[in-house]
């Protein structure tokens, strides 16, 4: 591993961690709502959340580019606030959140779908309001599934390539993540560098998936 490799890995881990933290509130809200709601909107939201799993990542990246570019609906508004997203580390963050969120929601949801309604009801009779019930009963009982989902989403975020390359490019020290750098090495024939990064990715992915599976198994 060279200094360059370490810099790339640290950048990827840092943005990946940030993305995972950012995913947590919407991920919890969505997975809980999907598990509990009887609304007719459930299948619609379910489909929308799952889309990034099945769309070509490059297409997701392109949609994000249109949305967040200076002339995009969200990008124009951010631009007036002086916030530039496209081709910065923030674009990497957004791409990671969008691509990781479906995995978090799908996994965490199974935790909230366990039969915990009875405990929530008893907590209510003991005087607990909805927030207290969620944070002291529902969430702790679903914690393993939530952690497993976070770990999977984190691993997915680290490996993000297709959406990132479209929306963030490959700027050294800013948007060049492991996957993006690896592609660059391959294109320019830097095989030794490619092997080093590929092995690092493999180690991180193995750890994350092993941890996630362990958590899911223990929560069952």
């Amino acid at each position: 591993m060279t200094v360059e490799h370490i810099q790339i890995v640290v950048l990827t881990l840092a943005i990946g961690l940030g993305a995972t933290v950012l995913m947590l509130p919407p991920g919890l809200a969505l997975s809980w709502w999907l598990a509990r709601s009887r609304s007719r909107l459930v299948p619609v939201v379910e489909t929308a959340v799952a889309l990034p799993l099945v769309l070509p990542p490059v297409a997701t990246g392109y949609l994000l580019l249109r949305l967040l570019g200076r002339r995009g609906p969200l990008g124009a508004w951010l631009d007036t606030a002086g916030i530039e997203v496209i081709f910065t580390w923030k674009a990497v963050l957004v791409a990671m959140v969008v691509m990781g969120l479906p995995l978090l929601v799908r996994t965490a949801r199974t935790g909230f779908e366990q039969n915990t309604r009875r405990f929530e009801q008893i907590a209510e009779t003991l005087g607990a309001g909805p927030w207290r019930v969620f944070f002291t009963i529902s969430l702790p009982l679903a914690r393993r599934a939530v952690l497993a989902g976070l770990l999977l989403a984190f691993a997915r975020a680290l490996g993000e390539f297709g959406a990132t390359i479209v929306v963030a490019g490959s700027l050294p020290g800013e948007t060049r993540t492991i996957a993006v750098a690896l592609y660059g090495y391959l294109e320019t024939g830097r095989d030794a560098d490619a092997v080093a990064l590929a092995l690092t990715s493999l180690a991180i992915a193995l750890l994350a998936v092993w941890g996630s599976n362990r958590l899911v198994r223990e929560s069952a």
Partner: protein
Amino acid sequence: MTAASPAALVLQIALRQGAFTMELGWSGHVSLLGLFGPSGSGKTTVLEVIAGLRHPATGRVVFGDRVLLDTAAGRWLPPRRRGVGYVPQEGALFPHLTVRDNVLYGSRRGRSRPPLDEVMTMLEIGGLVERSVAGLSGGERQRVALARALLSSPSLLLLDEPLSAVDVPRRRRIMERLTGWLARKRLPAIHVSHDASELAGADRVLVLGEGRLMAEGTPDDVL
């Protein structure tokens, strides 16, 4: 404890669930009210309606000066505001909390509650306070659930076969102690059982069958 003893209770419940229908109307004063009947007669349903865990199609439940439910007036008080301590038959202890955290879950800061030691000793579970819920027997779970409800300072206690998994001599001993304690604290309670001997201490007993009130009277009259 704010509720006077005995406190007025109005129960009007009509509901249907699958093949089971309930049509129940009763009003009277509660200090220790027994609900007796075979399995499937609707005893648990009555408790769940009072606790706010089940929504009848039409109904009116008033306890003291509080309207807990009135479908005609569109009124439904959420369970957390009912001040009702519910002890389900299976205990339903929070599996991720210790015994101590379970029994203190409903006791809020700034509100007086009975001393922890007094309640735990009365129910013969003083030695379990630091234990995790996972290793408890069925009878221990039931008594911890009972302690949890008592320590939440309810104004009405709902007991659903609360000691059914406890061995008979101990069950009698604890029930006798609990009955005395409730009377001293002026805490009204509704006690569900399908074992007539358990309801001997009740001041009034309602006999249910297939979702209807079949008889009402003192334990000696109806059991």
